[in-house]
């Protein structure tokens, strides 16, 4: 009897079950047909809310770009008059979209090539120099100012020019700087000599190893993107290998603000420019030897530049910066003297020479007609630079990413007399992501972690007494671009309204836990001629934003 009831119960339950399924399918089905937030690359500017289609890069090319995007959206919508539709694209698509000029608002970032204010205004605000950003921003006035500023070397005059440039920048609000990221390194407490200056370089030869060791083990998540040939490398890590294994004519004094007087001798011991700034003469250091014993002289310098300029590979730094627009020819006037003939007077020329793209290669290792690529198991053949403090003694890659690199002190290095390099051997281990790197640092697998630690990891490491956290001014800046082809972003008022709605401090605190600094000018903090121009628009200046947009009929 009992059993029978049970049987019925089960049947009934299953009846219900089936019904529930139908209900579920129905509910879900209906729900699925509701409008889905798919990308719609057009901005609808009807009466009512002001809708922005806001794009960001989603494959980790920029630090925590997704978090930033979330913050931007939230901040814009706080005004109550703006709605933001976020759109993500991985790096390659992001670039095609940019070139297709279909992103109304998009966020970009910048590492400096040569350390000079010019490298922070010309590539953005100058209609020609900024062409690659496709903002379609052109203001003859600002173009003229920039050209004048880069042509003269007198600081005071340049200052005046840059003051005006930064003023117009805010009036037009064509491009809005947001933040400048600090540089971070974490080491064991007894490691010394880590210099994190505005150049973003890591000078391994200045670092003193942990007590009683002559080897420094460094962990990083970076990896050489193409190769370490001066004539092609254009990614941070590739250039840093060039810096430590190669040598340039001049250097920016480590730790300095890269001001006009901060240049120190490298392979060149002295230099001077002609009055018109079109010819630069460098006297070379004597007695410097390549690793194969041959003597370094002016021919090597000429060879290096001729080679880079003749190759001029599409993804090389020379092509990127436009060396050919600046340098006309290089002439070896004597065994230890070279003369550069320029096409235009170019104030930041020394900075350009200090940039790794201008370093000197070993002619024997660098064929004139091709870039030197990674050669499996042969570090020597993979690296054409051998004048620097270190020689690349081993380099292994796995699955197209770096795996391990070893530097050994270069016995022929010209700086040996001054006691450099301070550490004989550098071992660089590559970790696949920030998490792994942080844990390696915590567990003491590495003596030093440099790039890229997530801000949350840095925060937790700062409270960790077994490690030492180094902070320096970063020259990486991030900024918002507007596509002026798409209305209403051709209207400076609208752009200012959006700029004013930003709350840079909040962004920096939320996304980077305070490990970056708000930026109010394209010229980063700590660099000559910097001025907090955008402060005039204020932060989270909602009243301003609302009033502007209401004038235009939104809200």
């Amino acid at each position, binding site marked *: 009897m009992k059993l029978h009831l049970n049987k019925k119960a*089960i049947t009934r339950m299953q009846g219900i079950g*089936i019904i*529930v399924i139908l209900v579920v399918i129905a*509910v879900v089905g209906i729900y*699925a047909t509701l409008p889905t937030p798919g990308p719609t690359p057009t901005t609808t500017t009807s009466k009512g809310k002001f809708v922005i289609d806001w794009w960001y890069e989603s494959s980790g090319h920029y630090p925590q770009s997704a978090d930033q995007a*979330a913050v931007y959206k939230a901040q814009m919508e706080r005004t109550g008059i703006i709605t933001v539709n976020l759109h993500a694209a*991985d790096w390659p698509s992001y670039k095609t979209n940019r070139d297709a000029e279909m992103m109304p608002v998009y966020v970009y970032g910048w590492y400096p090539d040569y350390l000079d204010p010019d490298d922070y205004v010309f590539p953005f605000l100058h209609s020609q120099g900024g062409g690659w950003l496709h903002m379609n921003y052109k203001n003859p006035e600002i173009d003229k100012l920039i050209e004048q500023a880069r042509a003269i070397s007198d600081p005071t005059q340049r200052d005046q020019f840059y003051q005006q440039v930064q003023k117009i920048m805010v009036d037009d609000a064509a491009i809005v700087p947001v933040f400048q990221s600090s540089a971070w390194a974490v080491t064991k407490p007894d490691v010394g000599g880590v210099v994190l200056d505005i150049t973003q370089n890591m000078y391994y030869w200045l670092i003193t190893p942990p007590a009683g060791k002559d080897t420094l083990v460094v962990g990083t998540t970076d990896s050489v993107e193409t190769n370490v040939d001066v004539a092609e490398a254009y990614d941070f890590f590739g250039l840093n290998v060039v810096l430590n294994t190669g040598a340039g004519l001049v250097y920016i004094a480590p730790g300095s603000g890269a001001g006009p007087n901060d240049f120190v001798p490298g392979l060149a011991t002295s230099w001077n420019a002609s009055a018109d700034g079109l010819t630069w003469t460098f006297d070379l250091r004597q007695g410097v030897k390549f690793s194969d014993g041959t003597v370094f002289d002016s021919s090597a310098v000429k060879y290096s530049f001729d080679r880079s300029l003749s190759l001029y590979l599409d993804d090389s730094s020379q092509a990127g910066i436009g060396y050919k627009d600046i340098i006309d020819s290089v002439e070896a006037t004597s065994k230890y003297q070279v003369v550069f003939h320029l096409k235009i007077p170019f104030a930041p020329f020394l900075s350009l020479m200090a940039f790794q793209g201008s370093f000197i290669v070993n002619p024997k290792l660098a064929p004139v007609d091709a870039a030197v690529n990674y050669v499996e198991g042969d570090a020597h053949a993979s690296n054409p630079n051998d004048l620097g403090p270190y020689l690349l003694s081993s380099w292994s890659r796995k699955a197209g990413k770096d795996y391990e690199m070893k530097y050994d002190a270069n016995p022929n290095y010209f700086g040996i007399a001054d006691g450099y390099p301070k550490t004989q051997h550098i071992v660089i281990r590559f970790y696949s992501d920030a998490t792994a790197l942080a844990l390696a640092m915590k567990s003491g697998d590495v003596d030093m972690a440099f790039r890229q630690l*997530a801000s*949350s990891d840095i925060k*937790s490491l700062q409270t960790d007494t077994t490690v030492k956290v180094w902070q320096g001014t970063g020259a990486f800046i991030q900024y918002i671009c507007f596509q002026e082809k798409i209305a209403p972003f051709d209207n400076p008022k609208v752009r200012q309204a959006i700029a004013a709605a930003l709350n840079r401090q909040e962004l920096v605190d939320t996304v980077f836990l305070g490990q970056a600094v708000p930026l109010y000018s394209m010229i980063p903090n700590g660099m000559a001629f910097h001025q907090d121009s955008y402060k005039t628009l204020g932060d989270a200046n909602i009243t301003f934003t609302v009033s502007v947009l209401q004038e235009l009929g939104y809200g």
Partner: protein
Amino acid sequence: MKNEKLQGRIVVQLLPQLRNLRQRGLAGWAILIGAAIVAAMAIMTVASPWIRPYDPILINVGPILSPPSAQFPLGTNHLGQDMLSRVYSGGAIMFQVAVLSVIVCLVVGVPIGLFASYLGGYTDKVASLVMDSIYAFPGLVLAIAIAAMLGPGVVNMALSIAVVYVPSYFRIIRSQVLTIKELPYVEAATIMGAKSRTTLFRYILPNVIPSIVAVATINFADAVLTSAGLTFVGLGLPVSTPDWGWDLTYGRRLLPSGAWWVIAFPGLMVVLLALGFTMMGEGLSELFNPRLQK
């Protein structure tokens, strides 16, 4: 006239399955529980705008990464967003992707399966070859590859998932049709001169439907997991829409800081949802596919 007679036969054919339903207690419970879970989640997702305490995309509603507390029962994430609200509304995308992909699979897979296997011959051979080769391949990898080409977006995700799961429909339908084709009452129908269209839709389709339903439910579960997986490898949607898969993806970066609550709750939701569909699927296939019984 004669067709009606045969109709009667069909009912007879289906009866055993219904009787089955009454006998197999466990399967019934599985279906029931599974369905309940799924229903609960669907309702939660749809109702989230009214029940969630905060707007899930609002930042700094609370301190950054605060553990579960009275004010934030599930804590907050690295942007100071309320996890509870995110958990409430995080299912939307998964549901959409799952439903879409299943629909696509039904629209594409069922007809192909029916016709290819019913017509037989070359059509069948070619179709089976294509389907099997896709079927044999690591599904997620294929989905990833396709999604990578198509780019982000609900529809694209659904499509790339559908491509992977169409074969399983095809296979089950094919095997069924091949057996049913031989059944006396179908042959009888053909002998009695029923049009092949009639045979296909009147006699074969009804008998295939149960297993289609079963596969579809499993497909739901897989779609949920796969969409989460796609998001995890960075092929998901922009941050603006709260999504469990997304929270899991980001949670990984927060692991060293020990913020377990950021991954735990969204993760559990995904598991529950997939579990619900799986249980339904298991139950159904246990009811309908005698081979899988026991």
